[in-house]
């Protein structure tokens, strides 16, 4: 069985500085994989490389065995990879419902149609309602995204990321800045919506990481120094040294 997501010798330079220095990574289908590492290790950059936001300097990224590096973000998305952002990234002036519906449009084959009225597409609207329910945002259905609370915005961010039905999901610090109860709620949500999907998550909160992840990779100065199951990582001396301990 091919891996869901494969990174081979991925490198990224910004001018003279090499931020990602040859990352290899493979995610099996259905795997929940977390990337941890100190600030400035290049975690977000790695996400941006995978999702096509930045071009690679060298190396290759494959999705289900097919090369996606070099494609534009929307092309990568259409192949079944979706991502969230560290800084909330929604359609601010649209309502919650519309954010979700927009996330569904391409996946449901509407393309750039200017002959369908979205209000009349009952299957589409129902699906958006279902997502709304799944996220627990029914009460906030018609509120513009910009007026949501922070936690609600983060929830919606996760919602729009998975709504299109991508089977490889990248979440960039989904629980950052949340209170404890909000965080538990978010973990539960992530667990629910990523059933049968491959998940790659960047997270600072070790609780979240060890709670969610099947496997963990540690990224330090643009290189993965360890990649293993949570328990093994916890005991890895090199990791302790580079990251947890000191």
């Amino acid at each position, binding site marked *: 069985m091919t891996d869901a997501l494969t990174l081979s010798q991925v490198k990224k330079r910004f001018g003279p500085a090499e931020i990602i220095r040859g990352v290899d990574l493979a995610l099996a289908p259905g795997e929940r994989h977390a990337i941890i590492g100190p600030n400035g290790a290049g975690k977000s950059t790695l996400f941006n490389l995978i999702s096509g936001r930045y071009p690679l300097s060298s190396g290759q990224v494959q999705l289900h065995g097919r090369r996606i590096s070099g494609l534009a973000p929307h092309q990568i998305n*259409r192949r079944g990879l979706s*991502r969230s952002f560290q800084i909330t990234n929604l359609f601010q002036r649209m309502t919650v419902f519309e954010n979700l519906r927009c996330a569904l449009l391409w996946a449901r084959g509407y393309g750039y149609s200017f002959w369908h009225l979205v209000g009349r597409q009952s299957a589409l609207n129902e699906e958006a309602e279902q997502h709304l329910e799944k996220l627990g945002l029914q009460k906030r259905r018609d509120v513009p995204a910009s007026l949501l609370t922070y936690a609600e915005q983060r929830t919606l961010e996760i919602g729009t990321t998975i709504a299109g039905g991508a089977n490889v999901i990248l979440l960039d610090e989904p629980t950052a800045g949340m209170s404890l109860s909000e965080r538990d709620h978010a973990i539960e949500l992530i667990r629910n919506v990523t059933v049968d999907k491959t998940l790659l998550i960047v997270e600072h909160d070790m609780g979240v990481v060890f709670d969610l992840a099947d496997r963990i990779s540690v990224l330090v100065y643009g290189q993965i120094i360890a990649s293993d199951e949570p328990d093994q990582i916890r005991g890895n001396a090199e990791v302790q040294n580079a990251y947890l301990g000191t």
Partner: protein
Amino acid sequence: MSTSNFPGGAIVRHAAVWIAAIVVIIVMPYVFTSSSSVSMMSQMGVFIVFALSYNMLLGEAGMLSFGHAVYFGLGGFLTLHAIRAVNDDVWSFPLELMPLVGGLGGLAFGVIFGSVSTRRAGVTFAMITLGIGAMVEASANMFTNFFGGESGVSGNRVTEVTLLPFSYGPQIEVYYLIGAWTIVAALLMFLLTKTPLGRMANAVRDNPERAQFVGYSTTIARFIQFALSGFFAGIAGGLFAILFEIMTAPNVGLIQSGAVLLMTFIGGLGVFFGPIIGAVLVTYMQIALSGFSEGWILYFGLLFVLMVMYVPNGIAGVIVSHFAPWQAGLAHRFAVPYLLAIVPALLALAGLVTMIEMGYHLSLAYDPSRPIELFGMEITATSVAAWVVAVALFAAGLVALRWVAGRIRQRWGEVNQAMDAQRAKQ
């Protein structure tokens, strides 16, 4: 499931608005009967379509264009050439559908120029449209067969090939033709905002990056929106050509492009009826104000600058911001402060207008010492006293206005709190 999800109510409400619009269009010539007002209202119709098409770019998709008149003007030229061809018996096509020629022309040029310009966004896009606009304007002097040189292309709209038994010679018949097209075009553009493309245009405006990560190419979404906008601009141009029976090079030029930007912005971006208000108001001002005052461009510029500073959402934005208090039953609480504001606003305005009018009178007038008639009074621009009074009026008005503005701000705060409290109760 909340009620607004049920489309029936919304459709009924919308239909009522559209029917009302149709009634207004039908009735207006019976209210304003002179041929110049009919002509002015016809122009308003043309510019409503044009401004709405511009709003498709700036309002809906966040694309600031300084060259939208290219599609308007080229559409108009093509329409006029088509009308001439019918008059020369080279072609046969009913006059009623002639704006389609302009529309398809606008679409074609929208596809051509859009394919290069929409690859960029933001200020770069704006500069490309400026460049294309300037280029097309400059080329009007070269391709005189098409643009007719500086005297332009003229034609006779009475072609004898029509669907309905009208000649379209009389102004009023053209008015109703334009009215019908305005309704159709406006309705289509309204529906367009409800389509996947329309939604994604908004998405690309709000957050181009996110739009990419839900599977959409921002370039293609912008491009299609741009081309369709060119189509409607072309229709407006076609109507313009039928109305005036003459097209000249400035119709594709930067000044015309600037005018549509002003209209759309003053009316209000992003609210569907905003550009309609803007087109009506600006057309009226352009025609009427220039008859009242030599300084109409200055009033116009000041209005625009003040709007950018204080009312960036345009007139429609102001109206929309009162919807929520209205629905909450709190709108009446603004009555007193708003009424209070009128007095100082009028004072300041009177002072300003007096100063500007006296200034123009001094610098341009036929006889500067002769008094000017203003607000039913005779004012002598050469007298110091008049200037002192004007400046005092203006200053006093401003000071009072600041004070009232504080009151209004305070009242908004109270109303917002009351609305939050209502919401919390639900």
